[in-house]
Each structure stands twice: as C-alpha cells, then as structure tokens.
C-alpha cells in the first residue's frame, strides 16, 4: 500500500475525531440546557448541527474515495467501514441534540412543570456512554466497548420508569399534557443517544476483534461472520 494511503487514513482519523468532538459538545450543551431553561439554545445548536452535517458528508466522501482507490483489507477495511458507521451515528446524535434543545425551549414556557430528578441521571449516563464509546474508539479498547453495551440496559430501565412517571402526570393533571408531551420526547431522545453510543461501542468491537456483536442470537461461525447469508 502506498504512502498516500496512510496519509489518507490519518486524515480520515483526524476528521472523525473532529466530528466526534463537535457532536459530543452539541449533545452535552443540549442536555445542559435542560437544567438551565435557555430558550435561545435550540437556534444556536441548529447552526452548530450544520457543522456536524458537513463532517458527515465529508467523511463519507473520504471513505468512499479510499474504498474506490485503495481497496483496503483487514484492519484498514474494518476501520473505513467503522468510521462510516460512526459518522452516521454521530450525525443522528447531533440531530437529537437539536431536537432536545427544541423540546427544552418549549418546556421553558411552563415554569411550574416539575422536571423529574432522574432525567438528570439518565442524561448523565447517556452522555457518559457516548463519551466512553468515543474513547474506546480512539484507544481501540474492545473490552471497554463491551462494557458500554451492557450499560444501555440501565438507561432503558430509567427510560421505562420516567415514561411511566410522565404518563402518571398526564393522567393526574391533564392541564400539563403539553409540557409532559415535550418531556416524553426528551426522554425518548436521551434514550436514543444511549442507543447510538451502544452502536458506536459495537462498531469498536468489530474494529478491534473483527466480530459483529449485534443481534447475538443469530448463528455465527468462528470467523465472526454470519454462518449463512440471506438468499
């Protein structure tokens, strides 16, 4: 493989890290905004989301160029495939950040609406999962990535409990249905952030070990590849 290939791979790595940082800051600010009731935050984040979208397209183009020109194999192939997938996850995380900020902005009009304390716990856990999954990608730490996947169950449990709380509020106080609907969406978005973090962690396992760990109930052969393909 030529020196050009290694230069392209290095550039791709720098770019995906820049995108990681931009997307992580976005979701961090969006979740922070839940506590601070900043009504102008949604517009600010929407502008920053465009930067993440630009990274998404640029990284996809770079990956396709590398695939077409250099035909990478083994760990190089896995890295290009994983970078494409992670870019997609991050783009969605950034979209969720904007959606959370929009809902947060709408909820700020209902100052008496009680924000459940466990939402903060759920948001911190989802954010931590995203942060750790990006660290696992940078450090190529598949063991750490596998641990992140297990933490998604805790977020799912918090999601179920919080949704139940919101439903109870709507039943008991119909006048709060509108802010409760916004809160319902926020909870779902935070849960999706944890899902994207889990997807990134699964991609890291594939990058390091070559094993696809999604859908663990499907039969696989020793090489980690599906034993039989769809016909």
């Amino acid at each position, binding site marked *: *493989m*030529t020196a050009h*290939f290694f230069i392209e791979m290095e550039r791709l790595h720098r770019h995906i890290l820049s995108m990681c940082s931009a997307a992580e800051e976005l979701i961090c600010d969006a979740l922070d905004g839940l506590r601070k009731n900043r009504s102008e935050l949604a517009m600010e984040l929407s502008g920053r989301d465009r930067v993440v979208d630009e990274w998404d397209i640029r990284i996809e183009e770079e990956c396709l160029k590398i695939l077409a020109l250099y*035909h*990478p*194999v*083994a*760990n*190089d*192939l*896995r890295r290009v495939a994983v970078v494409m997938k992670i870019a997609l996850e991050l783009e969605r995380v950034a979209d969720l950040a904007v959606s959370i900020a929009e809902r947060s902005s709408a909820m700020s009009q209902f100052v008496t609406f009680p924000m459940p304390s466990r939402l903060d716990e759920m948001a911190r856990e989802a954010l931590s999962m995203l942060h750790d999954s990006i660290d696992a990608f940078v450090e190529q730490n598949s063991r750490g990535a596998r641990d992140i996947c297990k933490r998604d169950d805790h977020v799912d449990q918090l999601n179920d409990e919080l949704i139940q709380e919101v439903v109870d509020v709507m039943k008991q106080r119909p006048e709060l249905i509108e802010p409760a609907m916004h809160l319902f969406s926020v909870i779902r978005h935070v849960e999706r952030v944890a899902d994207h973090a889990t997807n990134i962690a699964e991609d890291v396992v594939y990058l390091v*070990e*070559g*094993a696809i760990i999604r859908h663990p109930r499907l039969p696989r052969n020793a*090489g*980690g*590849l599906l034993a*039989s*393909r769809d016909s």
Partner: protein
Amino acid sequence: MVTFIETLRSPIERKAMATSPTTVLRVPPAVAGVDRDMDMSQHPAAITARGMNFYYGENQVLFDVNLTVPERSVTALIGPSGCGKSTFLRTLNRMNDLIEGTRCTGEVLIQGQNIMEPAVDVVLLRKHVGMVFQKSTPFPKSIFDNVAYGPRVAGERNRAILADLVESCLQKAALWEEVKDRLGESAMALSGGQQQRLCIARALATNPQILLMDEPASALDPASTSRIEDLIGELCANYTIVIVTHNMQQASRVSHQTAFFFEGNLVEVGPTTQIFTSPSQKKTEDYITGRFG
C-alpha cells in the same frame, strides 16, 4: 386515476426483484463466479501436505508446511517474493524434480497416495495435476494441435475423438467462440489473454483433477484478467485449483481459501473472506494491508 399507493411496488414485486437483481445491477446472469459461502468442510481433501520441507541444495526454503486443499475449490497462495509459494505449488506435481540439487521431505497426499515417493510415475501425476504458468506458453503449432497435444502423447489418434475433446476443452476455457472458425491457425497469432486461455484448455485436455496456476494473469490487461478470473470461478465447479498470485485483490476475488507464506513458513490459512477481513495473525494482516512486502 392511479393512486399513489398503486404506484408503489408490492412486496411480491420486491421479492421478485431480489431474486433476480441482474436487471438492476446490469450484470450478466450466466457468470458462475466463486461461491463465497461454500462450506469447505464438506469437501474432501484433494491435496494434503504434511510436514513438508524443501531444499535447494543446502538452502531450506520450505519449513514444515501442513496444508489441506479441499476438492473443487480455489486455494490462493500469497506472500512476498521468495516466500516459497511457487516452490510449494511446483511440488504438487513434482515440477521441482527438474531442478538439480533439490530435495523434499514430508509427504503430499493426492487421492490417498504420497506423490513424493520415488515410485510415483510423474508423467501420470502431471496428467492428473495440470499446470498453467505466468507467461503463456503455446506451442508453435495450430490452436487445434496445442489442445490435442497431451491426448496425442497419451496415445489418442482418433480424429473424431480428438475434435470433440478440443471443442470441449476450448469451451471450458471460454475460448471456443473466439477460435472455432480458425482452429488450424497458429496459436502464436492469438492475443496474450487468448493464449493463456489456450494454455488452460491444453491443461484441461489431459482430464486433470487438479489445476495449478502460477500467476496466470499477471501479464494480462484488466479485461483478459477478468476473463481468466471468471473462468477460474466456473472451472472450480469441477476442478480443484491452486493459484499463486501477487495480486491481493485477485486472491480475494477468486479464491475460497487463502494461504499466506512468509520466509518458507505457512503463517496462516483460512477462508478467504476471513483472511481479508479478520486475519488471525499480525504478520498476515501486515502483509495484506501493505505494511511490509
């Protein structure tokens, strides 16, 4: 008026498209290609090398090679120059016997027989284990006589039988349509790609079970290379093929199993899809990703 929902494809139409994607992808449906999902564990061994060592004089170039080649499959041998892959290939029909001062220990079983034993009839062995070289080597004879050469040496004189055999082999080598009207012309007038396919047809004429190919497409243009690769994909339904190639993409395209040699050692062997996505040995990964070699 046609409603929007009526313009959508029904699930049944979708399914029909999925089973016949050739219209969408614009690929010829006739090309067999290599079936990557083939379960090679179901194929009995065509070749089994056990503890093979090879020496050029005092210089040992193969070290304790153990490799099984499944029947009716394509095995690619890869590795940097001088790693021993061509030496290993030539051992499989004892072509190395022609080089003075060479010595081989260990055993190579073909149809249960150790072909390294001195009593083995090497002419008969080479009839069963054909070979195609890097540079096409047509004889300065007609196209017909090139393909008929082996059967004639084996004693076949019946013109009708030879004609059928020549046609059959040229068809298997995907050359018949291009040369059927000029079988009497010199083989030297064919293009490089056609000459190489002629050599494959000539190798098939002795009805071998195994075909050895030493970089068969390295001197050919992309279109001719593609035809040779398609041909390998079709031939492996009936023949066991072992191919040496320096072209990593070719190895990944045409083979079911890939064996990586380095400094005379067989470092790793496994299903090609696995070797090119998740090799188990660091050395294999470094080689196929161009970190060395």
